């Protein structure tokens, strides 16, 4: 177990390094001058060549490419993600400040997705081919197909115009306070529903795989009740691959948060990223995307570790 743990931990490093490298390559392989990504908003449009060269030197784009790459890597390692063009503040600091908001929203969304998706998937698999299965899988496909930003707008309109039980948007402090919790519910439901659709579909197919296994047939043939077979034999094994999916789901929660935070004015990393897009503030975009990618890689690491823990068959060599 401990060698597995250590090896898996070290596997994260090349992935993170790869992600950083990919961002760097994308910036420099894209057609056009990368300096255009680093022009501050107050920069004169008809600036002289001298001013542009000066800016280039300030951003470091005048140095040889390998030096730029090394300093980019070194920056990320020191958690220096550059400076916002708009606010002239360090991007990493702004992200860390907003991190708790996004984590709270993401974890709550994931909880909603699991609470909805897993039971629906299990039920669908047990009643395979029935009306329940059809309705559940159609609903799941709705969840997968609905643009989360539209769902968010619809929910806002529902509470804002017809059913004022929750604030339609905004932020009311930490979600561990009563007021803060009221504000997080709608965005969390929005993200959770999209995730639930995918989880329900995956749970169903995972459950169906297990229900076809010999040991399930054996359990049935020795006369165990359907309930015991489903919950003690089938479901516990079907849930194992679903744990892996939780890491992936967390990624889709983060990616959903980018858009949904904007819809609801939720002050998290996603909102920060989108403000960066709107202000043409590339360091903000780059920093936020990188940060979310690394967060996603770490989430997958944690699920893999949990996976190794709950499934003793997993051995890493």
């Amino acid at each position, binding site marked *: 177990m401990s060698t597995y743990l250590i090896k898996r931990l070290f596997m994260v490093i090349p992935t993170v390094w*790869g992600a950083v490298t990919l961002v760097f390559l994308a910036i420099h392989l894209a057609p056009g001058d990368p300096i255009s990504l680093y022009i501050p908003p107050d920069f004169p449009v008809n600036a002289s060549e001298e001013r542009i060269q000066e800016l280039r030197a300030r951003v470091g784009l005048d140095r040889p490419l390998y030096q730029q790459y090394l300093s980019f890597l070194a920056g990320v390692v020191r958690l220096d993600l550059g400076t916002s063009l708009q606010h002239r503040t360090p991007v990493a600091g702004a992200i860390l400040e907003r991190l708790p908001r996004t984590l709270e929203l993401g974890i709550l969304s994931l909880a909603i997705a699991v609470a909805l998706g897993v039971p629906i998937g299990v039920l669908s698999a047990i009643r395979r081919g029935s009306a329940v299965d059809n309705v559940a899988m159609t609903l799941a496909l709705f969840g997968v197909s609905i643009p989360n*930003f539209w769902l968010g707008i619809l929910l806002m309109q529902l509470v804002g115009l017809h059913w004022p039980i929750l604030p339609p948007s905004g932020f009311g402090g930490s979600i561990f306070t009563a007021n803060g919790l009221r504000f997080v519910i709608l965005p969390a439901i929005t993200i959770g529903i999209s995730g639930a659709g995918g989880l329900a579909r995956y749970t169903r197919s995972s459950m169906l795989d297990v229900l076809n296994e010999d040991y399930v047939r054996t359990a049935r043939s020795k006369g165990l009740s359907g309930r015991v077979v489903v919950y003690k034999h089938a479901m516990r094994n079907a849930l194992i691959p679903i744990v892996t999916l939780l890491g992936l789901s967390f990624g889709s929660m983060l990616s959903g948060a980018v858009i949904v935070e904007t819809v609801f004015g939720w002050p998290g990393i996603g909102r920060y990223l989108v403000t960066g897009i709107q202000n043409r503030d590339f360091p903000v975009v780059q920093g936020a995307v990188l940060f979310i990618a690394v967060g996603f890689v770490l989430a997958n690491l944690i699920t893999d570790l949990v996976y190794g823990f709950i499934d003793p068959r997993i051995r890493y060599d």
Partner: protein
Amino acid sequence: MTEPARATAPAHAMGAPGSAPQGPPRDLRMSLRYRFWREIRGNRMAMISTIYLVLIVAVAVVGPLVYDVDPRLQSLANRLHAPSWEHPFGTDQFGRDVLARMLHGARISLFVGFAGALGGVVFGTILGLATGFWGGTWFDHLAMRVVDVMYAFPGILLAILIAAILGPSLFNVIVALSIWGIPTLSRIVRGVVLSLREQEFVIASRAVGASAARIMARHLVVNAVGPIIVYATLSVAGSILTAAGLGFLGLGVPPPNPEWGAMLSDARAVVFRAPYLSYFPGAAIFLTVLAVNFVGDALRDAFDPRSEVRRMS
């Protein structure tokens, strides 16, 4: 409806004595088309979805010609009018006619979605073929590590990054969507090719000295066509959804061009004053993606029953 008549023809052909049951069919492409058609026809939701998709494409092509209103024309006197005879879908906060924007937006949104998916499928298939064929070599390892790294950017983030670097334009959105689609397709094609590569017919064609390109084009692609079409269909759904997301974030086709995702972003700004504004583009995106997913699911049940959706959003 003429559809069933057309569809029964191959059914008879297949049922004819001595044709289908024994041995592989003579013309693989014909048989694939038949199998796809049979699968869609047998599934009511997939059938309805196919009809819907044909209709929506027809609307995109013909609509702007029939309803001849400029989707970019602003009229500050006519801001935020609710649907009426004059403006069947109402007007937005710039006084632009929403129906006209929906119709022109259908062209842009569908084109971007399909073109982006196509790009991802073409490049993903090429990469999957190459890595599968030369599986286990340094090239395969390197390419698959790159694909792994691309997976580190969940959901729409990879597309956001590329679109933000390239800047908003129709072509750049398609490039961003194409790159976004490569990882999934290349992994699937690689998997299929890895299993095909050891089969006798591939070994035989190697033995008679067929070139790598010939083996890939004549033997491998043809046999991987089923899964490719299934995932190409599903990636159209993902691509339309992601394109709308980019549009919503202001990274799509630049304004004042109408695009469904960007229209939803405009609707968000007046969410309580003009609730109807979000209904049209939202429903259009949702129903189109849903229809493509229904068709994709039906095809997958037929061709790839033991698979799972890798990318969830």
